[in-house]
């Protein structure tokens, strides 16, 4: 059962059982959330084997840290997605050090397993804004700022990688991203 069809309360119950070492609950949690989380990891690291390593590390981490999960502070998918994203970003940065293809290589990077048929990052940002009913707020953000936001969030590109990708000075990218984040923050907070 994918996460989209399971209520946050059910995921909380599963996490509470996982904290007690319940392996059946752990498997149910995996089945319910792994496809969404794997999609997030794959989007960032772009190679299936590396994305599966990220997923493995994230679930091992979740198993070990489940007792520390606090339902009052975050929804289960927020907690799990954050674990996966941070691990994927660390893996991506580590890969850059070790010479693996990074998203800055372009959509057709030689080592990438996912190619141009995936929605572009700006498209994903707009889809998310539609789903959250903040599209009007997002559209009010300048084009370059929106593009920087999308490339950073969905592809994990750093300031310098974004600058390479859109062929703009890194100083401009930093300013665009900062301003874009300020505006996006207001959009999301208005939602809350």
């Amino acid at each position, binding site marked *: 059962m994918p996460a989209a069809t399971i209520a946050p309360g059910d995921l909380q119950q599963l996490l509470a059982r996982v904290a007690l070492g319940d392996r059946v609950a752990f498997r149910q949690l995996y089945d319910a959330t792994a496809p969404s989380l794997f999609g997030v990891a794959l989007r960032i690291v772009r190679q299936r084997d590396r994305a599966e390593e990220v997923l*493995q590390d994230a679930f091992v981490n979740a198993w070990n840290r489940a007792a520390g999960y*606090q339902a009052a502070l975050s929804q289960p998918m927020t907690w799990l997605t*954050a674990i996966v994203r941070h691990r994927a970003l660390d893996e991506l940065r580590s890969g850059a050090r070790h010479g693996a293809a990074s998203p800055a290589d372009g959509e057709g990077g030689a080592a990438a397993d996912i190619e141009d048929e995936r929605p572009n990052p700006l498209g994903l940002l707009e889809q998310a804004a539609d789903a959250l009913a903040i599209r009007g707020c997002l559209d009010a953000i300048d084009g370059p700022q929106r593009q920087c936001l999308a490339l950073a969030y969905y592809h994990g590109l750093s300031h310098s990688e974004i600058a390479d990708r859109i062929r703009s000075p890194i100083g401009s990218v930093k300013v665009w991203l900062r301003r874009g984040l300020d505006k996006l923050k207001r959009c999301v907070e208005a939602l809350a």
Partner: protein
Amino acid sequence: MNYDRPELLDRLAAEYVFGAMSARVRRRFQAVQRALPAAQRAVEVWERRLTPLARSVPPAQPSAAAWEAIDRRTGGQASRAVARATSRFAWLKPALGVAFGVIVTLGLARLYPTAVVPVDEFVQQRGTLPESYVGLLTDDANHPVVLASSTRYGRTMSIKMLRKVDVPPGKVLQLWALPKEGAAFPLGVVPAEGHGSFRMADTSEKLLSGVPRLAVSVENAPARAGTAPAPYVLTGNCVKLW
């Protein structure tokens, strides 16, 4: 960089969560988070803000080998689940043993008859450890350094130093509680090495029920309530063991 400025922490946390930091800056901010609870909280706020954006990412099915590896790495297979449940808490036994000893000394055993039972027997009889608050504090390199534990309704905090901390002459290691809301408050002084314990101002339940994090700072003298802590040298989660 002055990390005391909330607006700076907010900006750095946003860029960290968004993924825009380079490897070097990312590692540096991870170290800041370990040392500075305010940085960790700023990150958590941005995680809550931004996670909804991930919902538009198309799901993908991992291979069956992914779950098999996770299962294996977490202890695997139902037949080993019982052993796993016990071993997950094996590292707590020394500290809990100390906590039990102190409780008996204080005459609280009458209130908690199970406390006179050695912790190993208790675990075997009940299949679970006694209700306690437990903190594991780590240094910047993520090495575990302090194990702090106290039974839920006890007033004694037991400390086991997992590695020695170099404390400058005339200084003390002060343990702080970092509540979800409000300022940090001092709990007591921990030794530089070995074991120790101190009596808290109230029961663990009263003091720690709203405290997700603990930290240690180096102070000139034991801190009094209402004083601001020096920079933290060790931080870690405080969890409820029940």
